[in-house]
């Protein structure tokens, strides 16, 4: 998902740099410009954006992480996860590949961010840890190894040191 986000950002940015450069290159000499062609171009871009955006929106909204908590598809390993300045407490720290784990995440004090990093230190899932609320995050681990929880919501002077680890077994 990170790779997709990178590509859908960087390529359009490069494209816009190209567009601006072309307009700059064609700006030095004044000439009459067909306003109607410009308006037709704008209208076309608008229609194309809507036509592409609607199915893409439905596609990205099809599997939201919030709905996962309501699904009862097979056994679920429930884990209580509590953040407090500046440590995480997990009721379990060992899981298995293919097991659906339901993290019930809360905070004992301030807002924290429950960020799950895989063995290669890529974020695989996250949710917020908030006092007086429980955010339910379901995740199925696909690969074995040592996973890390990093805090992803600024919570004070040891925010950067607030981490813990757990194991996912084959």
């Amino acid at each position: 998902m990170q790779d997709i986000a990178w590509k859908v950002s960087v390529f359009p940015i490069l494209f816009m740099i190209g567009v601006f450069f072309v307009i700059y290159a064609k700006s030095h000499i004044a000439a009459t410009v067909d306003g109607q062609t410009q308006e037709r171009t704008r209208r076309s871009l608008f229609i194309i954006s809507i036509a592409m955006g609607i199915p893409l929106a439905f596609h990205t909204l099809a599997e939201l992480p919030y709905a996962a908590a309501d699904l009862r598809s097979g056994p679920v390993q429930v884990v209580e996860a509590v953040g407090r300045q500046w440590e995480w407490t997990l009721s379990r720290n060992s899981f298995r590949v293919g097991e659906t784990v339901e993290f019930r995440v809360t905070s004992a004090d301030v807002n924290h961010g429950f960020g799950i990093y895989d063995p290669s230190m890529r974020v695989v899932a996250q949710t917020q840890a908030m006092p007086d609320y429980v955010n339910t995050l379901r995740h199925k681990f696909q690969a074995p190894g040592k996973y890390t929880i990093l805090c992803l919501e600024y919570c004070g002077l040891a925010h950067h040191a607030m981490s813990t680890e757990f194991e996912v077994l084959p």
Partner: protein
Amino acid sequence: MKAVSDNAKLPLDISARRGVLAYLVATVAIFVLMMIFGLLMRASQAQAFGLDTSLFYQIMTVHGIGTVGAAGLGGAMICWYFLRHYVELSTTVLVLNLVMFVTGVVLILGGAFLGDFAGGWNFLYPLPAMSQGAWSNAAAASFLLGLLLIGSGFLVFYLDMARAILGKYGNLGRALGWPQLFGTSDAPPPPAAVVAATVIFLMNIPGILVGATILVLNLVSLYAPEYRIDALMAKNMTYFFGHVFMNGTIYQCLIAVFEIMPRHTGRPWKINKWFLGGWTASGLMVILVYPQHLLMDFVMPEWMLIIGQVVSWIHGLPVLLISVFGTLANVHRSGIRWNMTSGLLFFAMLGWAAGVFPGVADATIIVNQVMHNTQWVPGHFHTYFLLSLVSMLFGFGYHLMMDMHGDKAALIDRVGFWLFTVGGFGFIMAFLAGGAAGIPRRYAVHLTEWLAYDRAGAIFAAMSVTAALVFMVRFLRNLNKGVST
């Protein structure tokens, strides 16, 4: 009441011009200092030297609130300057806002650097009261009171704007150009600055009121901890205020593009139905879209989070198809007079266009789940604010302090332009790459494997800061000439 079509320009008297000059000096000085703070943070993360973690987070807090405040001040300056040509705004209120702003800044700096307050610019409840002994309630209160004072100044400022616009145009619909948008009037629409300012005060007045409320609630809970605020409600209020206010800053700076680019291209800015409809739609969308900051709060009503994504996507359309497209159309084959002003404003629109894409990506829930609160987030908003808003501010500075006095750019200005543009792009790309690699934001200490991104970011930041210093020195050297009309 004057006829709505009376769009004749009003002259700025000497006190108004001095007021605008004071805003320019304050805005630029604060921004340059905040950029230096930003460079210190990136350099510390890159292990060029090691800031004490408490100091790092104090600087982070001040950098965040300082850039927000300076953006607010600069945006208000640009909006006021151009709007004042069309409606009778109060110079007394202009000055009062600046006085309250500076007083608030003193309280904020005192709370942070004397009281060690490091609660982050967004003072997310209940962190200001829960520091584990790192700062006192008095330090937190100084920060919160300072921000409340600044917000109060801006509230009076936007209320005066509302008074002046409604006094001339009669009602909101006329000020927004709705008769022209819906085809019920053939009269000329209001000037771009009036339409924009109307949307801005409609957004900012409720935004500031909500911000002031959560600030007061935070202050109460500091000294009466038994008075507990619902943390989710506090988060909603904080991000509503923050989102609306920050969007307001860039919308105000955009007025400089509408008003100044035509002077260089010789083509008027088209106030057509796209423009009028786009501004009304943008104002509505800014209010609706703030849940984009809460996508990882799973306890939020799901429909609000879906609105956060969908409206974020839609919001890119007026940016790209009206503001950016309008700029490109205005410049295309125009025979434009390129100089520092037009160059910086043109680059600012490229920055704004560029910022749409990582922003839309991050506002997509399934992407946000792996990128929220990584460096992708500062990567996105620095694209909007460094490449676009700050560029607009510097462009306005060159317009006011050099173009209007007939000064020409020198080699040093052009060197500054390339340092700023290349440095700025490199800086934000380092953040975006870091976010894609999972580096968390707001970490004083980084892992060894993250250092390459930090070092790149620090080098490009140094280029941007150098450019900012060049710009500041170059156009403020005309301080004694004042602001021309």
